[in-house]
């Protein structure tokens, strides 16, 4: 193994979290920073030629190369896990920018009570309200503490939307159920695709409170506090699994990379496959990382500070492979690393068929409307048979024909041939899906560990997921489906396919790229891997960034929350840690 000269900071993973940390530390201090990214280099200008559904959407060009590494999955611990041999339920990205390049840029915040889910639920409903095998935790941080960082994130991204709660004042037209915002969104809401307009009007007529979906595909030109200017969205419809060809979508390559490239103390090494974080068990300090470079050579990169920012799965896997912390054992309840695996409940709750055309090729990954009347904790629970809830949304992603041709009302049973084709052609532009997105609680028996059998290309064990839905999610989905069908009817749909219900966790259906847990944060070193400053409790010069630190899923999409936490950690490191290294919490 070749040892390189030491640096101050090494960051594993060149996505949103890693590059934001690199920007904050690299521009506010003079520390030397190496970012290690295992995928290819990317630039914002790459995306002019990417508007090809086949190579990008269908063949997953921006996603991790599963021939090198995947995860295995089983529904419960009595079964043998099998590898996910092709992409499906989630789509982790690779290359500079990570999943932040191909995302839809939906940027809702979490509800305030999500951060104190355990204590608030117990206080309100009693200890028996939580399922017997739950692993729900408080985060060790409150919404009020995080709010200033959420606001910084919105300014970084230029988020488009309309506030529903401005410093406690409720504003009709925004999400009146959201946590307070200290400031209005930096840019106004996006334009509204027709299907979403139908949804908005129908939801309003039913007494709900629809609001423009928060979007980091921005509605008009905007210059952020770092001086980065972007144009507004053109609604070309190529966001979902694509990079943005006009740069209207917030991406690490357009917001962070240009700044990093101007600073000589920051360098980015692509094609570098990190295998271990090395640490000294005497001093309890991380020493650096070992990786395989693009030429296949094994390298040791010493560093004074190590940031692990390589998405939920690899964050968890690298701790397990490196022997850092005790692996979680669901039988004894000992150990923490790998616990609290959650996904996000996302289903096409009501697919609606109309007489009139929808022009659904137009849109953006986050242009649309949603309502959160069932995503709040002051619901009347007496008639509900589940905990928590979710939001109901209609978005005009910009739909392309390979992925969307062939959706027909359930009454039509043909799946090929003239009759199928006739209906599939006629319904092609007359079909829209309402989506229900709900919270996934943490359970003791949903967790991650190392697979005993399957290996990656380098011979290291794959990460194994033990994951299935429980009745709480199934009932929540049934409820959300019923409400969505009512909205679809009020939209004037002629036919409606209601979602058939959650059964076993299905890896073949894309749900979302929002997977949480494995290296959770919390207020106590006994029950969490990192502190609320994302600092490893035992190795204080190791920080873990990303949704792997979330104790459980909140219905909302994770990116603004994880970026807010990165800002908060960066402040603490610049203001305190670099002066006096040690535990921040």
């Amino acid at each position, binding site marked *: 193994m070749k040892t390189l000269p030491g640096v101050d900071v090494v960051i594993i993973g060149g996505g949103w979290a890693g590059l934001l940390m690199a920007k904050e530390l690299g521009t506010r201090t003079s520390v030397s920073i190496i970012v290690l990214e295992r995928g290819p280099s990317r630039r914002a200008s790459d995306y002019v030629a990417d508007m*090809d559904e086949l190579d990008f959407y269908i063949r997953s060009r921006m996603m991790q190369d599963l021939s090198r590494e995947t995860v295995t999955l089983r529904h419960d611990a009595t079964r043998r896990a099998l590898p996910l*041999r*092709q992409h499906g339920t989630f789509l982790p990205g690779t290359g500079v920018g990570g999943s932040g390049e191909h995302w839809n840029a939906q940027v809702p915040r979490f509800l305030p009570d999500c951060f104190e889910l355990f204590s608030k639920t117990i206080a309100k409903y009693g200890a028996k309200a939580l399922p017997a095998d739950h692993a729900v935790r408080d985060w060790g941080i409150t919404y009020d503490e995080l709010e200033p960082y959420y606001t910084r994130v919105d300014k970084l991204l230029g988020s488009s939307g309309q506030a529903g709660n401005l410093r406690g004042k409720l504003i009709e037209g925004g999400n009146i159920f959201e946590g307070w915002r200290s400031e209005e969104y930096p840019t106004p809401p996006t334009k509204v695709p027709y299907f979403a307009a139908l949804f908005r009007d129908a939801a309003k007529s039913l007494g709900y409170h629809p609001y423009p979906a928060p979007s980091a595909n921005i509605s008009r030109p905007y210059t952020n506090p770092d001086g980065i200017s972007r144009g507004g969205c053109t609604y*070309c419809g190529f966001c979902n699994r694509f990079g943005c060809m006009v740069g209207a979508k917030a991406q690490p390559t357009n917001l962070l990379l240009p700044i990093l490239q101007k600073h000589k103390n920051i360098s980015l090494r692509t094609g570098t496959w990190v295998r271990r974080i090395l640490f000294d068990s005497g001093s309890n300090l991380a020493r650096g990382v070992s990786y395989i470079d693009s030429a296949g050579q094994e390298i040791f990169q010493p560093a004074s500070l190590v940031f692990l920012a390589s998405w939920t799965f690899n964050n968890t896997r690298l701790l397990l492979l490196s022997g850092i912390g005790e692996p979680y054992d669901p039988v004894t309840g000992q150990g923490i690393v790998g616990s609290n695996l959650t996904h996000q409940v996302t289903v096409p709750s009501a697919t609606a068929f109309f007489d*009139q*055309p929808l*022009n659904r090729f137009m849109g953006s990954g986050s242009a649309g409307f949603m309502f959160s009347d069932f995503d709040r904790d002051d619901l009347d629970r007496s008639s509900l048979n589940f905990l928590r809830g979710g939001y109901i949304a209609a978005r005009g992603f910009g739909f392309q024909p390979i992925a969307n*041709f*062939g959706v027909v009302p359930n009454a039509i049973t043909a799946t*090929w041939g003239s009759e199928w084709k006739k209906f599939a052609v006629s319904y092609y532009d007359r079909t829209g899906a309402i989506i229900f997105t709900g919270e996934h609680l943490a359970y003791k028996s949903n967790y991650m560990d190392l697979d005993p059998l399957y290996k990656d290309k380098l011979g290291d064990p794959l990460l194994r997921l033990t994951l299935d839905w429980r009745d709480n999610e199934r009932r929540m989905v049934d409820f959300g489906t019923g409400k969505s069908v009512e909205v679809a009817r009020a939209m004037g749909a002629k036919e409606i396919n209601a979602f058939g219900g959650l059964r076993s966790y299905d890896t073949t259906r894309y749900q979302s790229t929002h997977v949480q847990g494995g290296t959770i944060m919390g207020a106590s070193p006994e029950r969490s891997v990192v502190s609320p400053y994302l600092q490893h409790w035992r190795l204080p010069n190791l920080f873990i960034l990303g949704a792997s630190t979330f104790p459980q899923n909140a219905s909302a999409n994770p990116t603004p929350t994880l970026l807010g936490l990165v800002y908060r950690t960066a402040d603490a490191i610049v203001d305190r840690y670099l002066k006096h290294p040690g535990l921040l919490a």
Partner: protein
Amino acid sequence: MRRRHFLSLSAATVGGVLIYTLDGKASLLSFQQKPVRIPLRFFTETEALIVAAATSRIFPSDESGPGAREAGVVIFIDRQLAGPYGKDRFRYTEPPFEDGPRELGYQGSLTPRQIYRAGLKGLGAFHLLDHAAQDAALRKIESTNFFVLLRQNTIEGVFCDPMHGGNVDMIGWQIVGFPGPRMSNYDEIETYYGKAFRPKPVDLRQVTGAAIRPGEEEP
């Protein structure tokens, strides 16, 4: 090296001049009269004839518009199988291969190339059968991996960007009213509520003016 195979496409097979109406219905005005000989990358000529026949039963040319045959789907599939997709370049293919529940996805060891080769062998002289017999033969294999792949690849070939060899003359896009990679809908997105907006389709090379290397040409 294998013997070079060609697919001869006759008058009514590929290419033509299209008109399309506001509601997206496309019809062929006139056909090219000259037969074309297209070199095959993966299929033998017989295999290509079977694929052309089968995909045009899946997505037929009929009163709801042109089908897989006019879109050049067989050429699209031939190129896909010859490229990285056909050899499972990006799939996790480490053993052991074990059957699992449907929710864990395809667990087999066979690549798309191998699935096609075996599946086509099973169809025998399919291309020589009449339509009713062809439909009956396809119904028999409906639940196989081969058919699932054939159906999916047919849809891909009808609706892909023409640079991949299918969707000839953007015929698939015209059937459903998809305009291709249009750079901006800023002025239209809120002005066509409830009315069809059907701009003339453009493909990616026309939009960017650049030579783009499709995925099937990658190693």
